[in-house]
C-alpha cells in the first residue's frame, strides 16, 4: 500500500443508452446510487467534482455546481474538470489531492453526458486555426479513421486479422450480457461483425463503439475516514495517472494532422499511451504482473489490443496471441473489459473513465455477479482522449 492511497466508499451508475433526458437527471441518479452504496449522506460530502460535458450548454460547463444544485446546495466546495475522455479520472485526481491534503473528508465525483447520433463532428463555424476543424475540411478525417490507422498497423506489422478484431467484439459482447448498466446486451458472432458495413477499412461498424447517454459517480474518502465509517478493507485508489505526452509524441493522435518531429531530438523511450500506464504502476508501486483485471478504452476493437500492450500486460505485438488463447476473456489469465467495455456501453465522454472505476470497484469487492473475475485484487483502467489527455487509474484491495 502506498502512502497516497484513498478509499472508494461508494460507486453508482445510470444505465447507458439513448434515453432522451437531460444529463443532470442521469448524473443525479448515479450520484444518489453512489451515495447510497457508501452509506454516507449527501450532507456529509464536503467536496464535489463534476466532469464537464461540452454538449449541454452552460450547465455542462459548470457540471460540478450543476450537480450540487440538483442534489441540493449543501455548502460543499466545488470543482469542474475537463480532460476529454480522461475527464472522469482527472476529476478523481482533483478530489484525491484535496483528500490527501487533509482539506476534505468526503468527495463526490460525478460525470454524465448525452451524445448525438452518428460521427462526432466539430462545432459549427469556420476555424482555420483549429486542427479539430481542419481535419474534416482538408482531409475528411473522422474519429473512426484514426482508429482504423492504428488497426491497420496491427495487421501490417503484427499479422492481426479482421477476424481478430471481431473476436474482441464477440468477447466483450459476451462479458456485457448480464451487466445491468450496459446499453447493448446481445451476443455477437464473428460473422455479425464481418458482415457489418466497413466504416473505415479495416474496421467494420461493429468494431467501432457508439456514443451513449450515461452517468457514473464515485464517492471517495481518506482511509482514516473509511475506517471511522467501519470500512475495514475498502477498495483503494492506488494511483491516478493523468500524464501528458513527452515531446516528441510520435504517434498520430486525434485530431492532429501530423505528429511532433523527432529528427532533432530522437524518439522517446515510451509512447504516450505506454507512459500513461507506466506512471500509474510507478505511483502505486505495483507491477503489470500483479494486475488481475483491466478496463481499457475500446473505442475500437483493435484499440483494446493496443491497450493490452500499452499497459505492459503482454509484449508488443502479442495481444492477438492472448486474445486467441482466451487469456483476455472471463476465466482467462488477465480478463480485459469484463464490464463489456465500450463495445457494450458506447461512449459517454465525461462519465466513461468513472464507469471504468465503478466496474473495477465491483470486481475488487467481488460484487460483479456473472462477470466476476475470481479473486481479483488489482485492477487498472486506461483511456486516451484528444489534445494530450489520457488516464489510468489503478485500484487495489
Amino acid at each position, binding site marked *: 500500500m502506498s502512502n497516497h492511497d484513498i478509499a472508494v466508499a461508494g460507486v453508482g451508475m445510470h444505465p447507458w443508452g439513448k434515453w432522451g433526458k437531460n444529463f443532470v437527471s442521469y448524473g443525479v441518479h448515479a450520484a444518489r446510487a453512489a451515495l447510497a452504496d457508501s452509506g454516507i449522506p449527501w450532507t456529509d460530502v464536503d467536496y464535489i467534482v463534476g466532469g464537464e460535458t461540452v454538449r449541454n450548454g452552460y450547465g455542462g460547463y459548470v457540471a460540478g455546481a450543476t450537480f450540487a444544485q440538483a442534489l441540493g446546495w449543501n455548502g460543499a466546495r466545488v470543482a469542474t474538470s475537463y480532460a476529454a475522455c480522461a475527464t472522469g479520472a482527472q476529476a478523481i485526481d482533483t478530489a484525491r489531492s484535496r483528500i490527501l491534503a487533509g482539506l476534505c473528508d468526503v468527495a463526490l465525483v460525478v460525470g454524465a453526458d448525452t451524445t448525438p447520433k452518428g460521427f462526432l463532428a466539430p462545432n459549427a463555424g469556420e476555424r482555420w486555426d483549429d486542427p479539430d476543424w481542419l481535419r474534416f*475540411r482538408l482531409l475528411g478525417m473522422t474519429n473512426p479513421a484514426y482508429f482504423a490507422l492504428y488497426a491497420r498497423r496491427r495487421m501490417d506489422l503484427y499479422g492481426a486479422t479482421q477476424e481478430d478484431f471481431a473476436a474482441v467484439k464477440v468477447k466483450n459482447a459476451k462479458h456485457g450480457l448480464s451487466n445491468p448498466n450496459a446499453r447493448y446486451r446481445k451476443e455477437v458472432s464473428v460473422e455479425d461483425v464481418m458482415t457489418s458495413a466497413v466504416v473505415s477499412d479495416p474496421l467494420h461498424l461493429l468494431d467501432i463503439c457508439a456514443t451513449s447517454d450515461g452517468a457514473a459517480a464515485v464517492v471517495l474518502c481518506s482511509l482514516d475516514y473509511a475506517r471511522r465509517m467501519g470500512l475495514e478493507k475498502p477498495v483503494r485508489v492506488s494511483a491516478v495517472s493523468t500524464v501528458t505526452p513527452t515531446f516528441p509524441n510520435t504517434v498520430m493522435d486525434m485530431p492532429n494532422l501530423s505528429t511532433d518531429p523527432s*529528427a532533432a531530438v530522437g524518439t522517446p523511450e515510451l509512447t504516450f499511451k505506454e507512459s500513461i500506464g507506466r506512471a500509474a504502476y510507478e505511483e502505486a508501486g505495483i507491477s503489470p504482473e500483479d494486475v488481475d483485471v483491466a478496463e481499457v478504452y475500446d473505442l475500437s476493437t483493435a484499440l483494446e489490443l493496443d491497450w493490452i500492450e500499452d499497459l505492459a500486460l503482454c509484449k508488443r505485438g502479442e495481444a492477438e496471441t492472448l486474445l486467441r488463447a482466451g487469456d483476455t476473456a472471463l476465466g482467462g489469465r488477465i480478463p480485459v473489459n469484463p464490464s463489456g467495455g465500450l463495445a457494450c456501453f458506447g461512449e459517454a465522454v465525461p462519465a466513461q473513465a468513472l464507469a471504468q472505476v465503478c466496474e473495477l470497484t465491483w470486481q475488487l469487492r467481488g460484487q460483479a455477479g456473472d462477470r466476476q473475475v475470481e479473486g481479483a485484487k488489482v485492477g487498472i483502467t486506461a483511456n486516451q482522449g484528444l489534445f494530450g489527455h489520457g488516464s489510468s487509474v489503478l485500484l487495489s484491495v
Partner: protein
Amino acid sequence: MTATPAIEGWFTTGAEPALLGSRCTACTSTYFPPTAQQGSFCRNPACDGEEFETVELSRRGRIWSYTDAQYQPPAPYIAPHAEGEAYEPFALVAVELAEGIVVLGQAAAGYGVGDLKVGAEAEVVVETLYADEAGERSIWRWRPLNSGLVTELGQEVDQ
C-alpha cells in the same frame, strides 16, 4: 482555371510540389502544419525558440498507416461531387518523413487501400479537393510509389 490551395502556405504547387514546414532556428525541429505565421513557440521542451524558417519538407516518405472513408464525412468536409451524384470513398494515408514527422493526407485520386502497405514509399502530389465560388481548391495528397521500401530516408533533408 488554375486551382488555388484550399489553405494558404501549407504546400507549394507546380511540377514538384512540397509540403511547407516551419523549422525552429534554434533546435531545427521542423513542424507541419507550418507555425511561423502564427507567432508560435517551439514545442521542444528543451528549446525556447520562437523563430522559424519556412522549409520544404521531404517529398517522399514511408507509409505509417492508412485507411479510407467509406461514408461521407460530416461538415465542415466539403464533398467534391455535385449534388445528386454518388459519394466516392477515398483513402487516407499517414506518411513518415525524414524530418521524423508523420503527416496525414488523402491518397491521390484513383488509389485505394489495396494499393497501400505500411512501410512502402509514397510521394506528395497536389490535386483538386473541391470547388467553391472562387473555383477549384487544391490540397496535398499522397501517391503510393510501389517501388519497395524507402532505404535512404534522410538524404533529402541533409541537402
